[in-house]
């Protein structure tokens, strides 16, 4: 089978998310049911989910979710990990055998903490070290792929329709305070397990509907900072851009949104508030290579919250609704109605307008 990077298929997607602002944990069943009415937005070549707050018993450890092509690769990779991390638990990620999902790789998870001695020797902070290690494995270790590397969160993805992927990974047995979901219709790449969404690095996860036209400009820029885009899919570069802007550069979420979906110069010029105008001018100028053009609607997951964002021309659909402590985001209102038939205040954010939802005790940034 050809994998990402070996073939290009020129040819849309579905996204959904739910979050409890009270930090109340919800089973993953709701989110995979939400994907059912949007079935026709995907073509069966990828589905995936990210759940936050799902590993409270290991919340201080990085949860590495990995695909391996064979047992020997796993053994080699474990030896590599043991030199760098304390592994407190390693296990197969439980799955169900269902006819809709076939040809699965070896799917494993490790709860790890970087060895202090290694961090001291390399003079790296913990997150930077984990990010670099993920890049190293994904770039250099053939047949091994880290598809999730955050704390108290995890992604679950496969080739198949999203509602089937949810059943395959037994998501109804996990409980998270937020969930994101994706149904894939690959436009450029053949659809391999690693290429399904969400794309993640550390706690950040991105699900994306669209096809950005700035991929290569964005990739060339972000690769200067040590990121490696291995999969030729546009969503991967979006994930690294957010990691760079938020974690490395310390921008606020709103500012990062103003970088990737910057208003048009004509819109900035017509603004009456000088402070706002100056801020937007600065962000567009300082991070011009991180402007993302072309159609996208994305949901960025992070510890303690979600951010939804459309491209500035709003070339993809996205609606937001709420009910009590929960907020819902989806490509279509029908998906929201599947989780909560009585959802209220349904509205469509404008292009480039970030919608940020935080749990009451989530991180502020």
């Amino acid at each position, binding site marked *: 089978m050809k994998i990402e990077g070996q073939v290009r298929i020129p040819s849309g997607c579905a996204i959904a998310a739910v979050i409890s602002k009270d930090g109340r944990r919800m089973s993953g069943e709701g989110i995979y049911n939400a994907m059912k*009415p*949007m079935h*026709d937005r995907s073509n069966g070549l990828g589905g995936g989910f990210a759940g936050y707050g799902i590993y409270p018993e290991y919340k201080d450890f990085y949860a590495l979710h990995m695909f391996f092509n064979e047992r020997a690769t796993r053994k080699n990779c474990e030896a590599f990990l043991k030199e760098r991390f304390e592994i407190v638990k390693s296990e197969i990620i439980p799955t169900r055998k269902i006819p809709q999902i076939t040809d699965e790789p070896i799917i494993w998870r490790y709860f790890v903490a970087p060895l202090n001695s290694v961090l001291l020797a390399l003079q790296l902070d913990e997150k930077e070290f984990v990010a670099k290690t993920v890049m190293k494995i994904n770039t250099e270790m053939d047949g091994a792929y880290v598809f999730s590397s955050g704390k108290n969160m995890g992604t679950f993805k496969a080739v198949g329709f999203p509602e089937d992927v949810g059943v395959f990974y037994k998501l109804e047995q996990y409980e998270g305070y937020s969930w994101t979901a994706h149904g894939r219709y690959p436009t450029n790449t053949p659809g391999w397990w690693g290429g399904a969404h969400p794309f993640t690095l550390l706690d950040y996860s991105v699900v994306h509907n669209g096809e950005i036209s700035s991929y290569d400009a964005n990739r060339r820029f972000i690769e200067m900072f040590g990121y490696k885009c291995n999969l030729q899919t546009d969503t991967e570069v979006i994930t690294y851009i957010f990691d760079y802007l938020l974690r490395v550069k310390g921008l606020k979420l709103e500012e990062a949104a103003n970088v990737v979906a910057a208003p048009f110069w004509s*819109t900035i010029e*017509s603004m009456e508030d000088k402070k706002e105008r100056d801020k937007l001018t600065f962000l567009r100028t300082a991070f011009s290579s991180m402007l993302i053009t072309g159609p996208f609607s994305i949901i960025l997951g992070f510890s303690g919250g979600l951010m939804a964002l459309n491209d500035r*021309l*709003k070339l993809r*659909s996205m*609606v937001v609704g709420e009910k009590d402590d929960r907020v819902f985001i989806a490509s*279509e*209102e*029908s*998906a929201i*109605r*599947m989780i909560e038939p009585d959802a209220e205040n*349904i*509205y*469509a954010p*404008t*292009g480039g307008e970030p919608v940020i939802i935080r749990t009451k005790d989530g991180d502020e940034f």
Partner: protein
Amino acid sequence: MTEKNIFGINYKEVNDILRNCSGEIKLTGCCGQRFIAAGMSDKNITLKGIPGNALGAYLNGACVTVKSNAQDAVGDTMNDGKIIVHGDIGDAAGYAMRGGRIFVRGNAGYRAGIHMKAYENKIPVMVIGGTAGSFLGEYQAGGVIVVLGLEAENKKIVGNFPCTGMHGGKMFLRSECADIKFPSQVTARRAGAGDMEELKAYVSEYCELFGYDIDRIMSAPFTVVTPDSKNPYKQMYVAN
């Protein structure tokens, strides 16, 4: 009247149900089925729940009433008939419609009326009761778009870049539009007596459908936008 719950039923089956029915039919439990009533000509359909994208695509005379919101591309390329939406509609409503009428009680998303067109006596009409998103009437080639801005409070009646590429048809906005920037290839002016007479026919139907007072709506100033034939589009891409 036939009534049927279509929750969980595939759109092809839903349209088969509709085709095999005559007269009035009510579908409940809609949840995202696309293409409902596509191409249909002689039905009177009421929908409860949330219909999927491309509701009433190629509609050819049927009347479709939606009791809630509708999603994207309502009335895509519709030819005749009527679509009445009691809530809001998503993006690209009335995409390339060339006949018939769409009435939306609430707001419209981006690109409402993109590439609407008219030919001889086929003049499509779209009336939006609330506000419209950016790129309203993008590449409009014909037909009539009316935006009333009811219950808009401090929200602008239309988003950014309205009438981009507009080269035919007419738009009525219930606002003086002092804060709206139009492209130089269109003319925006205060509606005169003749315009108001034409407008009244569209607005009275809206008021009957949704129970508004026509005099109150018509008493506010309206702006009329039409293409400026003295300043046509030229050399947009290359000098030739």
